[in-house]
């Protein structure tokens, strides 16, 4: 072999260059799979592959978003690391908070037996950031960025005449014409209560649900009215435009609220008129949803200088084709189909293949993306990326991992993974393309890859769940919890964990002295700590069953 090497300087040169280039490129390989085993204890077999799990990368991405969310690092109205100051993105900022909350809710539900302040505090801090008021945080508040920013130009909110102060007032940050904030804010709180069961936010959630019920079933003045204040059974934003995607959020909350608290808002028909409206009126020629319907002309609305003019009330018109057809978008449909599947599963099942057929573009064998509008597939910009991001969650929910993986390859294959020096956090470096995407792609990966769907989060956990053993305290900065849940059928706590430094875990709700097993062999008997039990672990990776 050495003689062959010696006869060709070119070959030698090529070999050296290959090694040099190859050596530079190992940072972005897929992360390791979570180690899972099978063990039998007292004739009961526990197969860790039967339980939900998280990966190292998902946890590292969560740890990264925690550094920009947690009040431990910055105040609620501080936005270091969010890169959301530019006029192009400032109005989108609150959406990032909201969808980060939904993505991380799915992460929390993947390890339902791990409920320390690390996860609970993150979820709460995100809600507080969403609720930052102008009085406290001025221009840095979400209230300013989403509602009072004078560049939006909308300052008067009466119905039916926006400027007539004698008409019904529908304004304010928390009012019935701002569903694109109130809906998300309330869902963040509802998912918090679903996952952590504190009761602290229940009253505020209920206030919104009752306010929406009033909006959707009365004229706002106490008189019952079909279709509610705006006559379409939906709640507007922007203002005075109703969107399917925005209304899917309060509808979803109503279902979850009923599930959590035994109310019957859905059964009362609160959303019936609106669901019928979106399924009959807000449809394109392919039975998919259109993107926006004006319930009245917003004050200061600028009519297009040419082409067909919109009617009020009437659909928002497509501004690209400019021929009177209604506006359509992939992000609208992906978002709506995901969040509405719990309420109308047959509709999502029927629409999903049509949605893919119309909006998807094959880039290569392993990459695809979703165009913003199928009217004009040759454009590419922010809303195409948005449509692709929302389709990740929908594809996962539909069990379509092929589509999900191809979109993931498209979105993520152009960014480096950046790990922190201590190896606890990771993010995708989007600074060269668009810094604002950094936090988005971080939670986007979680949103796309956890084993929990938006649809499954719409149901409350069973009542028994809150009596199951769980981890209530831990040295969170030293552990990676891949799996943590109580198996009621086998009466065992499944714990798959990596420990970086000697750590203690505290378990609550055990009604006897629990014993931990690893690999089927005795590991430790937990130590009583008040009403709880604790266990200390040395560095290592463990598949533990606690019975």
């Amino acid at each position: 072999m050495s003689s062959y090497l010696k006869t060709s300087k070119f070959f030698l040169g090529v070999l050296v260059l290959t090694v040099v280039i190859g050596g530079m490129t190992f940072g972005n390989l897929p992360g390791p799979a979570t180690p899972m085993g099978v063990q039998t204890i007292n004739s009961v077999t526990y197969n860790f592959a039967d339980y939900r799990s998280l990966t190292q990368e998902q946890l590292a991405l969560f740890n990264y978003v925690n550094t920009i969310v947690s009040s431990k690092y910055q105040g609620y109205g501080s936005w270091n690391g969010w890169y959301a100051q530019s006029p192009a993105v400032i109005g989108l900022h609150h959406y990032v908070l909201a969808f980060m909350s939904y993505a991380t809710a799915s992460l929390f539900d993947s390890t339902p037996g791990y409920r320390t302040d690390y996860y609970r505090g993150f979820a709460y801090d995100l809600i507080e950031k969403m609720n930052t008021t102008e009085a406290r945080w001025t221009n840095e508040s979400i209230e300013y960025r989403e509602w009072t920013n004078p560049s939006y130009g909308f300052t008067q909110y009466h119905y039916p005449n926006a400027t007539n102060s004698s008409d019904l007032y529908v304004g304010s940050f928390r009012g019935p014409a701002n569903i694109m904030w109130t809906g998300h804010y309330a869902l963040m709180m509802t998912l918090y209560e679903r996952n952590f069961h504190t009761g602290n936010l229940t009253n505020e959630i209920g206030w919104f649900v009752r306010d929406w019920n009033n909006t959707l079933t009365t004229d706002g003045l106490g008189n019952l009215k079909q279709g509610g204040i705006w006559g379409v059974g939906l709640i507007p934003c922007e203002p005075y435009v109703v969107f399917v995607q925005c209304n899917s959020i309060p509808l979803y909350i109503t279902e979850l609220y009923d599930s959590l608290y035994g109310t019957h808002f859905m059964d009362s028909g609160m959303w019936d008129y609106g669901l019928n409206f979106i399924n009959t009126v807000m449809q394109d020629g392919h039975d998919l949803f259109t993107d926006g319907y004006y319930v009245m002309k917003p004050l200061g609305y600028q009519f297009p200088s040419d082409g067909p003019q919109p009617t009020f009330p009437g659909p928002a018109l497509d501004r690209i084709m400019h021929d009177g057809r209604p506006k359509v978008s992939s992000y609208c449909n992906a978002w709506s189909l995901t969040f509405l599947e719990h309420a109308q599963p047959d509709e999502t099942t029927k629409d999903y293949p049509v949605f893919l057929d119309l909006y998807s573009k094959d880039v290569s064998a392993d990459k695809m993306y979703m165009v913003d509008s199928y009217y004009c597939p040759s454009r590419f910009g922010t809303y195409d990326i948005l449509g692709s991001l929302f389709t990740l969650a929908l594809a996962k929910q539909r069990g379509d991992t092929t589509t999900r993986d191809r979109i993931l390859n498209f979105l993520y294959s152009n960014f480096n993974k950046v790990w922190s020096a201590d190896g606890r956090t990771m993010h995708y470096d989007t600074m060269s393309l668009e810094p604002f995407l950094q936090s988005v792609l971080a939670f986007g990966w979680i949103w796309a890859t956890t084993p929990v769907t938006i649809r499954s989060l719409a149901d409350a956990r069973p009542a028994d769940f809150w009596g199951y053993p769980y981890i209530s305290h831990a040295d969170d900065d030293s552990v990676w919890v891949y799996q943590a849940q109580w198996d009621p059928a086998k009466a065992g706590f499944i714990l798959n964990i990596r420990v970086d430094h000697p750590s203690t875990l505290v378990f609550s709700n055990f009604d006897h002295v629990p014993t931990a097993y690893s690999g089927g062999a005795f590991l430790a008997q937990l130590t009583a700590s008040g009403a709880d039990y604790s266990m200390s672990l040395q560095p290592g990776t463990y598949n533990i069953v606690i019975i």
Partner: protein
Amino acid sequence: MLLWVVAYSIIGAAIYLIVVLIPMPFTMISLFKLGLAPALAVIAVVGAVRGPIAGLLTGYIGEVMHALILSGGLVTATLPALAYGFMGLVVGLTPYEFARGRSLAKLSLLSIVGLMMTALLVLVIDLFVESFGTLAVIGFAFLPLVTVGLPTVALLTPLFARVLYFFTVEIRPHAIGAM
């Protein structure tokens, strides 16, 4: 002769498929992707060893199989697969002597030419057949193919060819006469 072409094509396509399914390391430098995609070199090597038809078929069949496995269907009526096969066709148009460094350099150069033609074909297909947005085509298809493909085919094609030559000289001397 035809049998050998078909045999090399099928084997080449199988090797291409196995290699292309392995996640390959890469790094981004600003918006440019740097890495190696050995599967591309497989197409070029088969073309160099067995001629243009074998190279074309290796790329075409391999990429069609790749699309079937990863997407569950055919991508753009297999036109991208044809583009990949074109690289093998270009490389296979001229004979090589893998024992000589100059011939390996020629192989490297023709692989680059073939890769650029593949990239341009992909660009045309994406812009005019699939009607992608220009930014999407350039940012997500054309540029990564060029920045990863060029060092790959320039470096790995002669490397693989030389290694193949070494093994065939030691194990299958008759194969050298057939080449």
